[in-house]
């Protein structure tokens, strides 16, 4: 019997992006367990913002390795939205996972108050993302767990992330899911409806939403990215498919312009064997696991 949810759909799911969520859940669960097993760890930690991406990762990780092995770190800044904090706390209590609260205001303000008060919101936002990364990696030591990534495919492709900030992790279980697919899987694994339905926001300043900031809806950009990247269509073909030329070109430029964010930095080739060029090994070699 199918139970029909009386609430209106919380998001738009373009049909071509619909995935088999059971298959994705299965692959992601196995992936999380394998990453930990290969590295000799059995716990993970993540920054839980109250948004959908980190909430989904928390649910998937709790399902894969048990909620007691997932540490949720809440890292608000003083202007962060109280609703986000409330949503993060709902996830923690729903999962029953351990959590910690670290207010990053002192770290961030300490830096900018010292002669950098005119810093732009972009600089402040990036600094906050990197402050959270530092807190997570410090907790990685005390918690004896690996930092699990929460970046999705949409933001990774358009470069809507902070290098070495929110993009930093030991491994990422959702990085090949578009935002629309994140929502689809979230609805299946039990992420609270309110988190799925609210407007995505980096919460870098009060009232900010991703879609307003970049000027298009996730459903639309996902459809364009799916055509350009996964289906290898040309800009002309995507336009012919019914998308606004200006928007397609803009998305294409964003992807090209952020290529550097998706790759490890190049090393100047000098010796006979160079990491990443002609010294190529699995990340986890036999005998390399922590014991």
């Amino acid at each position: 019997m199918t139970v029909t949810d009386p609430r209106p759909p919380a998001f738009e799911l373009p049909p071509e992006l619909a995935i088999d969520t059971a298959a994705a859940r299965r692959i992601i669960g196995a992936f999380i367990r394998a990453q930990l097993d290969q590295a000799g760890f059995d716990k993970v930690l993540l920054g839980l913002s109250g948004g959908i991406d980190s909430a989904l990762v928390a649910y998937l990780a709790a399902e894969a390795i048990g909620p007691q092995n997932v540490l949720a770190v809440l890292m608000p800044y003083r202007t962060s939205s109280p609703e986000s904090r409330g949503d993060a706390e709902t996830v923690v209590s729903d999962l029953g996972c351990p959590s910690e609260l670290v207010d990053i205001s002192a770290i961030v303000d300490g830096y900018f108050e010292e002669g950098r008060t005119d810093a732009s919101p972009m600089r402040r936002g990036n600094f906050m993302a990197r402050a959270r990364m530092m807190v997570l990696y410090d907790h990685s030591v005390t918690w004896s767990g690996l930092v699990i990534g929460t970046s999705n495919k949409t933001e990774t492709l358009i470069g809507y992330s902070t290098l070495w900030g929110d993009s930093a992790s030991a491994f990422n279980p959702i990085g090949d899911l578009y935002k629309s697919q994140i929502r689809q899987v979230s609805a299946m694994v039990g992420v609270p409806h309110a988190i799925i339905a609210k407007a995505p926001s980096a919460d870098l300043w009060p009232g900010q939403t991703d879609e307003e900031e970049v000027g298009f809806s996730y459903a639309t950009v996902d459809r364009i990215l799916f055509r350009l990247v996964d289906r290898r269509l040309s800009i002309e073909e995507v336009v012919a498919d019914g998308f606004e030329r200006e928007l397609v070109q803009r998305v294409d430029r964003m992807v090209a312009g952020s290529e550097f964010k998706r790759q490890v930095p190049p090393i100047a080739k000098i010796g006979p064997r160079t990491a990443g060029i002609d010294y190529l090994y699995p990340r986890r070699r036999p005998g390399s696991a922590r014991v």
Partner: protein
Amino acid sequence: MAALRLALAQIAPRLGALETNLRRHHELIDEARGHEADLVVFPELGLTGYLLQDLNAEVAIRRNDPRLLELAQAAGNMSVIVSFVEESSDHKLYISAALLENQAVRHVHRKVFLPTYGLFDERRFFAPGSTIRAANSERLDLRLGISVCEDFWHLATPQLLALDGAQVLINVSSSPGRDVAAVNETGLGTAESWRSINRTYAQLTTSYVIFVNRVGVDESITFWGGSEVVAPDGECVFRAPTHDEGLYLTQIDPAELRRERIASPLLRDERPEVVIRQLDQIIGERLERDARSAKRP
């Protein structure tokens, strides 16, 4: 002839850990013997894991390596197919699958088609084999056509094996699950493709197809399992679950081969002499064309 009992070893090899994987092979060979299996099949690179990159040379073994012989001895009365990185006497590295029988290595197939596109980079690390031949199994009293993963994505493989008398086509794979889509029965585009390939080859060659695919995770890639056996009429007679590790038992009935080959005498009607004549012509014309276009200014 009585039905043959198969044990499909749908395992999750440890990447680069040859000794660990050898132990696992011994365990499962012992288990299969307990079930009185006739044939045990392990997946592609079951002894080493798949995404080896520069570990390839570290896990490579010769085909007369004592550790392979130990597996052959442990097999006792059973026939066993294992897969490993083979180093030749001139130090080329191949992805190989060996038939172990009567305490010896009876036949080795070196993977001929090495995918080097998309998520695959095999040609960088391995040499391609150049032989596609069936092999007799004395124990099973059958002729086997052994191939490795991508070999099955080229029509010549099942055709040559069947023309060479194979009655059972055995493909050992490390197939990465990808293209997760809502439109497929399994949710995986890869699985759908493999199932249709296996079924088509079984039907067109009127042979049994045994497909053994690994499970587990190497780096980013998850292997989907779903090992299966398809009868000569194209009907899937056994299918292992996707993603679950295990030794799966099933059987095949050689009498089905006779029935199907009499009912649908496709192999009888093959015209290899026409094929070779046409191929010669096509290759000749291609070479001429290439030569002509090379001369053009």
